[in-house]
């Protein structure tokens, strides 16, 4: 086990999340991509804590912040989905492109 392989795992999770966030049409699936990106960030922060600064708790605080970001992202994401579904019967990003032009 070394810092590099842990960061590589984090990068893989983050990249899969990037693919999901960019490619999915359903708003809920898009949010899953965002969550995967944050999952990668928690793994990377934990690896930094273990290998670089075990004495300092700042990396642990980053994990806490990422976890809170996940919770906030999911709550607001579902609220926005509910609002737009109620207003226009839309649950796909492509249908919510009124302001595109």
């Amino acid at each position: 086990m070394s810092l590099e392989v842990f960061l590589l795992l984090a990068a893989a999770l983050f990249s899969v999340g990037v693919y999901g966030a960019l490619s999915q049409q359903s708003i809920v699936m898009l949010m899953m991509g965002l969550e995967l990106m944050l999952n990668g960030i928690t793994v990377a922060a934990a690896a930094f804590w273990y290998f670089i600064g075990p004495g300092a708790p700042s990396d642990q605080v980053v994990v806490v912040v990422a976890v809170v970001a996940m919770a906030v992202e999911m709550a607001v994401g579902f609220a926005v989905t509910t609002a737009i579904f109620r207003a226009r019967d839309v649950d796909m990003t492509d249908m919510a492109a009124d302001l595109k032009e």
Partner: protein
Amino acid sequence: MGAVAFWVLAVAAVACAVTVFVVDSMARATFALLASFLFGAGEIILLGLDYLGVVIVVMMIMEMVIMAVFMVMYMMNPAGLMPMSMVHNQRGSLLTAGTVFASLAAGIFLVPWPARGPHRPADPTFDLGKSLMGPHMLTMMLLGVTLFATMVVTVVLASQQGRYDRLGDDLKGKAR
């Protein structure tokens, strides 16, 4: 032992993450995402951060169960009975994701990471609590305010009608 556990968890986490965007049913995608989070939390526990790992496990189980409910509400292909493909710009997304991974990997191997000896605190959870209630108090307060604002925002967004809908623009109309 640690290395074996790392690789098993890592491969499982990435495989489940990919599964999320491959399976036909959105409910299955939710539980694949949950599995990916659990394996990721396993890595964090492996690194000695037991408390944070368990917090992620508990939180993600709750979050994904709630997400499954929303999936049932909004999904268009409940049981995955039909092949489902709901993607746009797949080639561009794959290319972007590949580029992101390649550049991150290049950075990981090119950066000379500082090699600090393994000087582990006896109790990392105690450390975290002390720093959140001490030097990182501002972070903790910001997180608290953010969560409170999120509660207000979600209720406002998800409620069917605002007061302007019910009482008119001057707020003097009769309640409908």
